[in-house]
């Protein structure tokens, strides 16, 4: 519409409910003017800048790369910067809460520490086989291991799968889809040396075998990854390692 004066048609205000306080808090109601191409993050930002500067929430990149703005929108976890209001508002209503399955610090900000602690517990850290003095190892992008690793490597750590997972909600020990997906990408990374220890870590109580294949992680992952398939891969890899006598049951 370059060159033409663009006037938006008048729209009714959105009725927005936003969680305020910690776990014992409650929803507060706001009226927010509707705009074209408005995202849920735009709504939250409007409330904080124009109505209540005390509202706490997290965001950074606004383009779906950093994974910091995930919230519960009308009952399901979403990345708010890439979620258009027009797609999710029901009868002009939006209910925005913090991510589930994580402690609420205040308002829309959750404590992500348990999420990342489980990432560590799943041995989600790369263990290099080379030093900086070695030549860079050539990896064929079409090799089966690399294809498997690539399928899960674009995780942005937003916590949406963790919030969507009922096994996480029911089993405090469960490492969760994101951490296990990360473990699976490293199991397939031929440069990594931590394989056996990692398979041992994800074979303990709360590891990959605790997954019930609800497939909510796959349904909700904003990056369209498939953590359920990664977890299934870990289940196979651990059974194979057990058959070879590499890990104990």
């Amino acid at each position: 519409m370059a060159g033409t004066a663009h006037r938006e048609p008048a729209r009714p205000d959105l009725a927005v409910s936003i969680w305020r306080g910690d776990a014992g808090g409650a929803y507060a109601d706001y009226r927010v003017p509707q705009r074209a191409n408005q995202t849920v993050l735009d709504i939250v930002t409007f409330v904080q800048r124009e109505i209540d500067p005390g509202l706490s929430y997290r965001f950074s990149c606004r383009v779906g790369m950093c994974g910091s703005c995930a919230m519960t929108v009308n009952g399901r976890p979403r990345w708010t910067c890439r979620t258009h209001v027009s797609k999710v508002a029901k009868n002009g209503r939006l209910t925005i809460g913090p991510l589930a399955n994580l402690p609420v610090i205040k308002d829309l900000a959750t404590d992500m520490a348990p999420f990342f602690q489980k990432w560590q517990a799943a041995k989600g850290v790369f263990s290099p086989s080379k030093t900086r003095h070695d030549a860079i190892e050539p990896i064929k992008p079409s090799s089966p291991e690399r294809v498997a690793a690539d399928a899960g490597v674009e995780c942005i750590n937003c916590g949406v799968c963790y919030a969507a997972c009922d096994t996480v909600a029911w089993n405090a020990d469960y490492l969760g889809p994101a951490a296990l997906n990360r473990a699976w990408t490293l199991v397939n990374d031929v440069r990594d040396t931590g394989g056996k220890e990692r398979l041992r870590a994800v074979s303990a109580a709360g590891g990959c075998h605790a997954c019930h294949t609800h497939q909510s992680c796959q349904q909700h992952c904003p990056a369209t990854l498939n953590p359920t398939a990664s977890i299934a891969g870990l289940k196979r890899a651990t059974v194979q390692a057990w058959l070879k006598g590499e890990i104990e049951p």
Partner: protein
Amino acid sequence: MNLRLYLWQRGTAALLAPLILIHLAVIFYATRQGLTAADILSRTRGSIAWALFYGAFVAAAAIHAAIGLRNILAEWGGLGGRTLAFCAVGFGLALALLGLRAVAAVVLP
């Protein structure tokens, strides 16, 4: 669930799948003209094949159900530690005993 329980759970599941298919076939066959004790017992009494079939069925089902119950009690009942182990093992043993008693009841001549 850890790897050990997973292996038992999925191992018994893989064993149970064909056994259930046979069981379903027997259910439909046995009800062809009304279920009678004479019909059932004439099939099973003194049969080593049926004793092995139902014996394996009971053992696999007892292990499978005990581990499943253990998951549910942990996740929905909030049980853990010894209480959880006691309930799961107790249920599995009770199921195995009752099941083997039932197998004995129909196969012993």
